[in-house]
């Protein structure tokens, strides 16, 4: 566009993707705190909400805005490797949405969080609380899944730490603020490749998908 300057801001993240991101941040914290303090009803509620949001995000990966789509941010391992090589080499390949390494992180987090939510459904705390689907499996299996649930939490901690390290790397080493755009949805023109055309999906689709995800979760549980 002729009137654009490097300080012009361009919308790259749609509202549903941003809301999903920050909701997951809050829900992971609530889930950890509630389990740590023994508030298992709160833990159940946050876990179920997380499950609904994850189902939504999977659907949004096919129906959402360009930058929310899996096809936009999932790359071959060779592309991810080339990207990291360029990054270490001092250049900064530009991407409107997730970069290839970030895309891999999104995929890993979605998988791990989904595994966490699902194992939680079958888990128990050994006292008075059992997940809503715990009775569908044997007590031994429920215990085993509870152990896996605890183990996955440690994997989540590692992934979250890597995520934060990457954000810090972009900000302090590459001079790009990744957090701001995930709040406002907008990136500086200078951080978006030339000629990129982003397509956004109407929010009503997101709402419908969220309701569908909630219905799916309810169907699984009841």
């Amino acid at each position, binding site marked *: 566009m002729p009137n654009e300057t490097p300080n012009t801001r361009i919308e790259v993240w749609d509202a549903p993707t941003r809301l999903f991101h920050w909701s997951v941040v809050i829900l992971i914290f609530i889930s950890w705190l509630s389990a740590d303090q023994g508030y298992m009803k709160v833990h159940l509620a946050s876990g179920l909400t997380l499950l609904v949001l994850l189902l939504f995000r999977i659907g949004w990966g096919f129906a959402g805005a360009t930058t929310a789509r899996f096809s*936009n941010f999932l790359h071959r391992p060779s592309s991810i490797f080339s990207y990291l090589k360029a990054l*270490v080499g001092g250049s900064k390949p*530009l991407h409107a949405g997730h970069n290839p390494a970030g895309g891999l992180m999104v995929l890993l987090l979605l998988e791990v969080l989904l595994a966490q939510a699902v194992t939680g459904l079958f888990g128990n705390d*050994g006292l008075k609380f059992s997940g809503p689907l715990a009775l569908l499996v044997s007590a031994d299996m429920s215990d*085993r899944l509870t152990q896996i649930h605890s183990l996955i939490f440690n994997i989540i901690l590692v992934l979250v730490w890597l995520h934060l390290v990457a954000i810090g790397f972009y900000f302090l*080493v590459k*001079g790009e603020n990744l957090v701001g755009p995930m709040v406002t949805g907008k990136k500086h023109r200078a*951080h978006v490749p*030339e000629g*990129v055309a982003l397509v956004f999906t109407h929010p009503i689709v997101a709402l419908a998908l969220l309701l569908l995800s909630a219905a799916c979760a309810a169907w699984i549980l009841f």
Partner: protein
Amino acid sequence: MSDNTRATGYLPAWLYLALVALVTTLGIAIAMALRPAFANSVLEFLHLQATPQAARNSFYAVRVAPLFENHCISCHGERRQKAALRLDSYAFALRGGRHGTVIRAGDIKHSELMERITLPPSDDRAMPPEGKTPLSPDEIKVIRLWIGAGASPSIKVAAIKGAPRLVRDVAIPNFDLAQAMRQRATLAAEVDRLSRRYPGLLSYQSRNSADMELDASSRGAAFGDADLKAFAPVTSRLVRIDLSGTGITDASASLLAAMPALKALRLANTKTGDNLVAALVPLKSLKSLTETGTGATQASLASLRARGVTIYGDGDAK
């Protein structure tokens, strides 16, 4: 959808990565300071600290560990670690849990474990929690004496005076009659048919059980492989079989090998041999085999013995 620009950050990459390494190390150090259990597991993993072991005949092993086993490890053991606490070994018990150490050697007053097991059952923090069997006053005294004596891994039983006498629990299994009846119902038609065809050979092990015994020894050589095959529909429930003196041969090997609940098998004076013995090796429930007067050799019986099966017989080296 990508382009390239030069980096314009505040720090060189090497400095940032060094800071990350520093912050990560600091984070792990803080976690180790806040969570002694985590600290101990890290130090033991890095071989910077020896894993404490209790002596076999120590007061801990003889008196304390069985109490933890009976009352605690269902929630604080290998399968489940509530509050990240394990009490299934001396090292784990001393290591503590998410909220720190629970046993302070020699300090009964500040040992959280002592506090928890002496709280009234109505207290939310009481251990074992409501619904589980609480420790008896004698059991609490045993733990108190041990912690008071330094929670030692090696102190002998005789060295701690005043401990209540050791009472050994004899577990009497609970019989679930309704469940046994339900299990019997699934095979009732087959059992009825077999009882009419082979009167007196098949019986339930007890009034409260759906497990069955087959005793064909009275039939002698008239009872052969084809007859045993007729019992195939009930193989899942057969726990004892006496085929002494019958006409069965190694041809029944595959049928006997498909009896997962079989505990005792008598084959005395039959024409069975090594092939049948070999087929029995995978049977995990099998505890005893009587093979007097059969063709089984010591070599074939060795693999059953190695599995812990008691062999009654001569193991004829023919």
